[in-house]
C-alpha cells in the first residue's frame, strides 16, 4: 500500500529524512514514535505529498509519487489526514465540514452526502452535534469530527499526525476509542503518537525514528518491553517516567 525506498529529504541543510525504507501493507496499523524533530510528521506528510522529498522512491496505492505529473488531487482523495490541531473549517457546521470534500471532490449529490455525513458522524459518536460549529465543541469532539471528515471520503489510507497531543487528558480516550474501532475494521493506518496503550492494543508494528533515521521497528510489546537499540531504550524510559 505504501512503500518507501531510500527516501531522503532536506529542509535546507537539515537532513530530516535519511534513507527511509518502509513497507506498509493493506490493513496494517503502524505506529510511529520518536523524539520531537525526529522526522515522524514529515514522514507521514510525504505520503499524501503535503511534503516533497528530494531523493528516493515512494509508491502509495501503486502511484509512484517520485514521478512528475502524478495526479495529486486524485491521490489525496484516497488518503485522509488527521491533524494535531484538527483544522476544522470554523465557518462550517460539523456536518458541512464532513461533506465538503465528498460533494466537491467525489461529486456526490448533496442529499446523499448529507446522509453519508450523518452516518459518519454517528460512527464517531457525534450524532447530537451535526449542526454545531467547531467553536462550540470540545477538543475531543472536534478531533472526532475531523476523523469523520476523513472517513467520509472512504479513504484507502488514514494518516494521523499526533491526533491526541493537543487534547486535554480526559478527552484523549474518546478519540483513541474511535481510532481503535477503525483499526478493528481493517483500515490501513499510519499513526504518529506516543500513546503506548493504543500502540499495544492495535498496532501491528511500531517504528522508532530519531534524527531522520528509521532506527528500530518491531512488534509493540517487544518494542516497548525490550527495545533493541540504545536510542529507543532511552526514549522509552523517558516517556515512561512521566
Amino acid at each position, binding site marked *: 500500500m505504501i512503500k518507501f525506498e531510500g527516501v531522503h529529504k532536506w529542509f535546507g541543510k537539515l537532513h530530516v529524512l535519511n534513507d527511509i525504507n518502509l513497507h506498509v501493507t493493506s490493513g496494517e496499523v503502524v505506529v510511529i514514535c520518536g523524539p520531537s524533530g525526529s522526522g515522524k510528521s514529515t514522514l507521514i506528510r510525504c505520503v499524501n505529498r503535503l511534503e516533497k522529498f528530494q531523493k528516493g522512491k515512494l509508491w502509495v496505492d501503486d502511484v509512484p509519487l517520485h514521478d512528475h505529473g502524478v495526479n495529486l488531487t486524485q491521490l489525496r482523495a484516497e488518503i485522509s489526514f488527521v491533524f494535531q490541531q484538527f483544522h*476544522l473549517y470554523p465557518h462550517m457546521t460539523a456536518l458541512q465540514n464532513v461533506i465538503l470534500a465528498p460533494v466537491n471532490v467525489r461529486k456526490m449529490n448533496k442529499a446523499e452526502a448529507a446522509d453519508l455525513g450523518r452516518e459518519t458522524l454517528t460512527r464517531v459518536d457525534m450524532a447530537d452535534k451535526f449542526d454545531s460549529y*467547531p467553536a462550540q465543541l470540545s477538543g475531543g469532539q472536534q478531533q472526532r469530527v475531523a476523523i469523520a471528515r476523513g472517513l467520509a471520503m472512504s479513504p484507502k489510507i488514514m494518516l494521523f499526525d499526533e491526533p491526541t497531543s493537543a487534547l486535554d487528558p480526559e478527552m484523549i480516550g474518546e478519540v483513541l476509542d474511535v481510532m481503535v474501532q477503525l483499526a478493528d475494521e481493517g483500515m490501513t493506518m499510519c499513526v504518529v503518537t506516543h500513546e503506548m496503550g493504543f500502540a499495544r492494543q492495535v498496532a501491528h508494528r511500531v517504528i522508532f525514528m530519531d534524527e531522520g533515521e528509521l532506527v528500530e521497528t518491531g512488534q509493540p510489546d517487544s518494542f516497548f518491553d525490550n527495545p533493541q537499540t540504545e536510542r529507543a531504550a532511552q526514549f522509552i524510559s523517558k516517556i515512561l517516567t512521566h
Partner: protein
Amino acid sequence: MLENFNFRIIWEYMPFFLEGLRNTFLISIVSLVLALLVGISACACRLSQWRLLRGAATIYIESIRSTPLLVQIYFFYFGLPTLGLRIPEIQTGILALMLNSGAYIAEIVRAGIVSVSAGQIEAGIASGLNYFQRMRFIILPQALGVTVPPLLGQAIVLFKDSALLSMIAVAELTRSGQVLSSERFMPSEAFLTVAFFYLCIYFFLKSLADWSQKKLIFREAY
C-alpha cells in the same frame, strides 16, 4: 457666545446643504463601489504568480499609499488636462477617490486572505480540494469575516475624504459650508452644520460596522 449663533441662516441655507449632502453621498457611494472593484483586482494581482502583475499592483498600491490624497486630487484635476485628458470635476473627484481607496482596500483584502491559517489550507489540500475550491469554500468565506469591518472603516474614511473635493470646486457638503461661510461670513454656523451631517453619516456606517463585526467574525476552531 451662543446668542450670536444664527440658526435662521442654517435653515435658510438648508436646501443648499441637503444638495451638498446628496452629492457627497452619491460621489462616495459610486467611488466606494468602484474602489472595491479596483481593490479586489489589485489584490488578486498582488497575490498572483505572475511577476509582472505583482509588480504593477505593488507600484500602484505603494505609490497611492505614500502620497497625500490632496496631491493626487490636484494631479488629476490640474495635471491630467495638461496631458491632454480633460474630464469634469465630479468625475475627476470620483477617479481620485476610487484609486485612493482602491489601494487601501487591496491591502485590507490581502490581509484577510493571508490571515487564513496555513492549517486550514493544508486541510483543504489534504482532502483533495483544488485551488479554486479551497479559495471558494475555505479561504474567502473566512477572509470575508475579518475583512468586512475594516472595509467599513475604509468606507468611513472615504466619506470624510470626499470633503477634499471641495478644493476642486465639486459641489459637495463641505463646499456648501464654504459657500455659506464666504457669502454671509458665518463660518461657525456653516461648518458646524457640515460637521453635523458628517457625524450622521459616520454613526450610520459605524453601527453597520459594529453589527457586521458581531455577525461575521468566526472564532478560531481551537
